[in-house]
């Protein structure tokens, strides 16, 4: 039996979180070229929170969506150009239509793990245009396996050709991944995917557990470049998958080259698991909050770890970045 795994590479999207959305057009061009050479099937590009998300609330990107997508499009030929879309940030008329006109091939429509209903129109629009549409359930550690199956089934009804669950907080252990992926594979018709974060050092192990449990799609980024402690490190993932006999279509040497290029040209520093990232993972807080938490905590001289713990208690999700300042102010008041 052929063990084929579809790899999607969000280095130029999730990695944007790691640099406060400051990736330049030149960096996008350089990495797209390297990923294309390596045979990466899908290269995901954009603001960390996806299409249309550049804003004061979650961070302004250095270059606009159109420039990012047009730049990547010019350098991707066999590799498909993918985008991350959260309804609410991205509108169909203003953002999605334009993105498809630019030549986006793959659209991953994402929602919080219990709010799949909001993806219906966006998924429908993408399928109507004949493009590839996937559903993404973010912060999936916050829902049980059975709830994830029901939400994923909605996305399947809306036209999603695959469902990816995100460990947005890097909170999973392999046993969690096995339980949830198995439930999804049994409950869905379409392929299941997994997007890891590395807060607890489990990104590669969790990704492998996902495919051993039946997942067919994995996300990975060069050097793990992504929000918080980063993602599953793509070049490691490809090496491990090769060793295990899985086929990805990606050339190992060339993806090693691409990651070297990314380290030199794209990322100011390689993601590491910082102390606060460990607490963030244990607390189940969205990795995309890391930059905001660090900045605001420093400004008010509070311990980041306390902020993460409190955010975890409040079950804050992506898009609620404004709660961080509330939490910090509460900590300041309590200190007095």
């Amino acid at each position, binding site marked *: 039996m052929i063990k084929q795994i579809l790899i999607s590479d969000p280095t130029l999207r999730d990695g944007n979180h790691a640099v406060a959305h400051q990736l330049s057009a030149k960096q996008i061009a350089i990495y797209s070229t390297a990923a294309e050479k390596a045979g990466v099937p899908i290269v995901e590009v954009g603001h960390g929170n996806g299409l249309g998300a550049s804003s004061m609330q979650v961070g302004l990107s250095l270059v606009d969506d159109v420039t990012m997508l047009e730049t990547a499009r010019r350098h991707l030929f066999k590799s498909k150009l993918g985008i991350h879309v959260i309804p609410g940030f991205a509108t169909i008329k203003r953002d999605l239509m334009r993105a498809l006109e630019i030549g986006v091939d793959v659209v991953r429509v994402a929602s919080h793990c219990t709010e799949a209903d909001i993806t219906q129109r966006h998924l*429908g629009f993408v399928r109507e245009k004949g493009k590839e549409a996937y559903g993404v359930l973010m912060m999936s550690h916050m829902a049980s396996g059975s709830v994830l199956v029901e939400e994923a089934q909605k996305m399947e009804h809306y036209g999603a050709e695959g469902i990816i669950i995100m460990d947005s907080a890097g909170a999973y252990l392999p046993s969690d991944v096995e339980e949830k992926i198995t439930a999804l594979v049994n409950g869905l*018709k379409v392929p299941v995917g997994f997007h890891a974060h590395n807060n607890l050092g489990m990104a590669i192990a969790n990704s492998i557990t996902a495919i051993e449990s039946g997942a*067919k799609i994995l996300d990975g980024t060069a050097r793990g470049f992504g929000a918080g402690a980063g993602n599953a490190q793509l070049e490691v993932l490809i090496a491990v998958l090769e060793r295990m006999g899985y086929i990805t279509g990606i050339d190992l040497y060339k993806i090693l080259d691409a990651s070297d290029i990314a380290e030199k040209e794209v990322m100011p520093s390689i993601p590491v698991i910082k102390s606060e990232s460990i607490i963030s993972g244990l607390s189940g807080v969205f990795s995309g909050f890391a930059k905001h938490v660090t900045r605001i905590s420093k400004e008010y001289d509070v311990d980041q770890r306390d902020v993460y713990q409190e955010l975890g208690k409040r079950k804050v999700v992506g898009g609620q970045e404004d709660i961080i300042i509330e939490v910090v102010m509460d900590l300041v008041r309590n200190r007095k």
Partner: protein
Amino acid sequence: MITEAMVNLVFEDCRKSCTNIDIFSALQGQSILVTGGTGFMGKWIAEMISYINATRSYNIQLCLLGRDIQRFKDEVPHLAEKEFIALIEQDVRNIHDLPENINYIIHAAGSPDNREHASQPLRMIETFYKGTQAVLDASTRLSDLKNIVHISSHQVYGENDSQLLINEEYLGRLKSDSINHTYAEAKRITETLCSVYRSHFKLPIILMRPFAFIGPYQDLEKPWAINNFIRDGILGESIRILGNGQTTRSYLYASDMAFWILTALISGKTGESYNLGSKNSITLEDLANKVRSSLNNNIEIITKSSKSIYTNFTRLVPDTSKIVKAFNVDETHSLDDSIKRTIVWNQLNRSKF
């Protein structure tokens, strides 16, 4: 925007499917109400009546009830302007009184679109339950009512893991505590309502359980395999089989569907249930290949599935022997022909492609 060529294609379809036009003399001067009258089924009923009235001077009157009449007028102006068609804009849940001259009712209100069921299950249940009760209540006050066809669904049979064709007595697996069976359970309660009104109020009601259809007026955006295969094929994109390619379905052409419903309306026996669909089964893999052949191109066919190996597959194909024997109806359009005509009709619709 509908063109003359599209109208002509549909008219020819009706001519082919209407294998016995003389039976419709029973409807001469009669009035038929169709709830959900502006949808796929309603449009085809209107097309078939239009063909019959144009071919014979039966002057059958049609009253189409729907929630968005303006949309109907925009989509099918050639039907909306017919003198024998009256349009009523109303939510089926709010029906109180029906026009007094109604002799026949086809209750087809409620969307079979599973995207809506997933997003708005409570509204769907309410539409089926309250809508059906409202129609049946109003029917009890009609002085010259001759027959009601209640359009149910094949989903009332539950899941079918066997190789057998589904007959009207089949009982499959249904879980009332599963969100996935909401539509099926809602349809089942409408069938029970029909039984109560038939028993207590002596309403003449027959049940029809539709399976899958294909043809003009079926929105290619609907989330069903054949629609999506045809849409992606026309767009020149790869055809994607989602799930098990050995899943088996069957497809009745739309004009045959309309003829069978109208025949049942005249001749159906109160209290009986009839399957409405094609007996000719096909796997999704074979269907995708047929669509590609019909389009005469080399687009890719991709299977996307959560599982690598399947130990079983679903088969939703009706045993149609009861309806064929009862009404002497037959499938007049082969699947190849159905696919080709659907493609041609949609390609004529230049505003969409």
